[in-house]
């Protein structure tokens, strides 16, 4: 009834007038519930306790400028479980990320780096990238004279749980955050207007059970399907790649061709998508294989022996051979062993042989590209996957999130030290202008790389092998790609 009346009046009354009506309605409601408890007001309410959200809160708590802020964290999972996360030294989680030196530096600045289980973090110093169709190759080692010193770290491989657990440990040490975990966000709405206080532009996060958190700034660190982003009415545009990323923890025959002190990351571009093997401590590596959903489900259905054989094949055999083996329900191990005898390849140009896969670590997730139209609104800011989702081929997803957080924390610090309302759009503008374009370029580059190399034949193939060889020869472009991997920023653009 009410809705009908409203719809009818709306047809006859201009928008500003209906808004006034709604305001009056809201005021009436307010007076009716005037006896309600005093609003629980926070300076920052962060929805999402993943790497981005936890880093942001750690940054805010560890800075003397922002440590007095009243902060709340809302997370769906039980954080105590993540905090006490522990695996034996010979077991590794399958969800790993590549942390650039600048991300690691930031984590160190906010005091979190020392809280990671450092013996489980693996630095790597060289990248081998090649085209599976033509074998054209880029060797991503530092050119003479450009590297600060031999064996310079390109990035650090870290289990995501090691990172979140370390951040939680640091946050616990700092204290002062109201944590609402195992919490479900029932809805996000706006506050109310009373005679003394007008909270009609303040987001209110209502948790299951009735708890209400008023936010001067509501941070959406709540992932690709961000409820905070929906609340703010910000759209995220992009596309699905029709690819899945298959992950697994692999055991290799040795520590790698370069030994413990010179770890190498490998990536081969196959027509179905890139397959990457990234070094973990000791004889272990982590796999990220982007492939079609059908191939992914076949890989997940294989025995450990056949899966291992397929991973070895992915770095060695021709795309045609691989394609054929994806049609077999089993028996890949035998297929691979005789095909390898027929295929010439340089042993040291590919990763050492995979000897096993850790039980229960094979999993997959769909790959997509998304970019929110903006990262800020009045009293809203988005960070990490809530703002952008990137193809994993450059290992930049988590680092983009860390870059966001660093910038947002700096923006909040400036606002606080200059008496600005840290939730106002005006105060948040520097964050948007610092991050949006930078993220956009990187999203675009990774998207194009995926597209150019996801073709098995046709005119693009000779062109791209020419391209890859040319890239290898072109110093400046190569060093751009290197610097990007190492998180030294976008200098070419």
């Amino acid at each position, binding site marked *: 009834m009410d809705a009908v009346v409203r719809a009818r009046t709306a047809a006859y009354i201009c928008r500003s007038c209906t808004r006034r009506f709604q305001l009056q309605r809201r005021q009436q409601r307010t007076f009716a519930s005037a006896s309600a408890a005093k*609003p629980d*007001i926070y300076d920052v309410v962060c929805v999402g306790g993943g790497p981005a959200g936890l880093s942001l809160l750690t940054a805010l708590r560890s800075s003397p400028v922002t440590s*007095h802020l009243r902060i709340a964290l809302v997370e769906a999972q039980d954080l105590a479980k993540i905090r006490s996360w522990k695996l034996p030294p010979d077991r590794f989680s399958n969800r790993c990320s590549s942390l650039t030196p600048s991300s690691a530096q930031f984590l160190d600045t906010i005091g979190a780096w020392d809280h990671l289980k450092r013996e489980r973090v693996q630095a790597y110093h060289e990248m081998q990238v090649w085209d599976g169709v033509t074998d054209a190759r880029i060797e991503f080692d530092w050119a003479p004279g450009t590297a600060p010193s031999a064996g310079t770290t390109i990035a650090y491989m870290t289990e995501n749980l090691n990172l979140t657990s370390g951040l939680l440990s640091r946050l616990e040490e700092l204290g002062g955050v109201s944590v609402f975990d195992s919490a479900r966000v029932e809805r996000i709405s706006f506050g109310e207007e009373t005679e*003394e*206080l*007008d*909270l009609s*532009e*303040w987001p209110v996060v209502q948790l299951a059970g009735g708890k209400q958190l008023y936010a*001067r700034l509501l941070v959406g660190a709540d992932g690709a399907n961000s409820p905070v982003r929906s609340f703010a009415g910000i759209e995220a545009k992009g596309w699905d790649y029709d690819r899945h990323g298959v992950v697994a923890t692999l055991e290799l025959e040795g520590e790698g061709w370069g030994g413990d002190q010179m770890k190498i990351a490998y990536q081969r571009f196959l027509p179905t998508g890139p397959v990457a093997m990234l070094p973990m401590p000791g004889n272990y590596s982590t796999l990220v294989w982007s492939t079609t959903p059908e191939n992914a489900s076949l890989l997940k259905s294989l025995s450990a022996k056949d899966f291992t054989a397929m991973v070895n094949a992915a770095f060695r055999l021709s795309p045609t051979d691989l394609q054929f083996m994806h049609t077999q329900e089993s028996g890949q191990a035998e297929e691979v062993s005789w095909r390898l005898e027929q295929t010439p390849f340089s042993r040291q140009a590919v990763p050492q042989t995979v000897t096993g896969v850790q039980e229960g670590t094979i999993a997959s997730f769909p790959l997509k590209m998304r970019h929110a139209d903006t990262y800020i609104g009045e009293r809203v800011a988005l960070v990490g996957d809530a703002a952008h989702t990137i193809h994993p081929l450059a290992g930049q997803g988590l680092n983009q999130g860390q870059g966001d957080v660093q910038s947002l924390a700096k923006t909040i610090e*400036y606002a*606080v*030290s*200059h*008496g*600005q*309302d840290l939730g*106002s*759009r*005006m105060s948040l503008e520097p964050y948007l202008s610092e991050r949006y374009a930078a993220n956009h370029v990187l999203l675009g580059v990774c998207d194009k790389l995926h597209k150019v190399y996801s073709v098995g034949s046709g005119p693009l193939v000779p062109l791209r092998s020419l391209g890859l060889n040319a890239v290898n020869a072109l110093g400046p472009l190569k060093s751009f790609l290197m610097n990007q991997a190492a998180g030294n920023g976008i200098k070419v653009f």
Partner: protein
Amino acid sequence: MRSSLRHTRRVVARYGHARTPCSHLQSRAAAAGQPATQPPPAQTITARIQTRSLSISPSRSSSVNPEEISHFNALASSWWDPLGPSRVLHQMNPLRHDFIRQCQNSSATSSFAPGQKLRYLDVGCGGGIFAESAARLPTTESVTAIDPSTEILAVARRHAARDPALSTTLTYLNKTIDDLPLPTTSATQEDTTTTTTTTRFDVVSLFEVIEHVDNPSAFLDRCGQFVKPGGWLILSTIARTWTSWFTTNLVAEDIIGMVPKGTHDWNKYINEHELREFFRGRPEWWGAPQVFGVVYVPGLGWKEVKGSEKVGNYFFGVQRIQ
């Protein structure tokens, strides 16, 4: 030329066509530096007071000009729109805090002990851009903000109600500096009959105000009495040069329309050397001034540019020595 400008601003003030609050735009061209020509005649503040006060009722009127008030009343509604016409003022606000800190750091003596919180008096607070921000600082004990315009103060109060953090630190008073009771000499004697305490302040600020005042000399003297010994009188304004006439009156108001017509009366602009002269004439009260010239660079916002105080917008701070 001058009479026509004056005419324009009277008309605008009467009909309320103005669209932005006061702000003075100095373009990059200005920064790039045509020489800072002084337009004739370079009057002293005192001389200008004498000529001008002939036309204005002299009683209790160091600050209030009714025309100015009605002009700013018309701007009230857009004051807090960050994308609206007062954007340049919002962008300038952080620099005010930087400047105050620079002043306080420049002096070995101060009105407050380390760790002690500060009391601010913001004169001509407008919609409260500075007053709110000062009240939010963790180092602030209280902010008293005054403005003669009822309409603008209503906007300021309504906007402050949107931030619960301000309710305990920020007080708006619809008064001129002349209406505000003079502070008692001792901090213990507080006037309990008025809503404001009448102890002196660590910071008395007059941002973009003095160029709208008829009797700047009396106004500054009056404001100065509210500053604690060791505290600072801080103001920002714009130099009266050909460049500032070109950028604030002709370009910003008449051509681009970035600042509403009638916001500025170029004749009232006060040059930095005139302010220096004024405070030098009261050596028993005031120390050597701190100055900070700023330039608005389109696309980048306000930037400090050394020496630009001779050309356009500048901050000026003096410490009260006793």
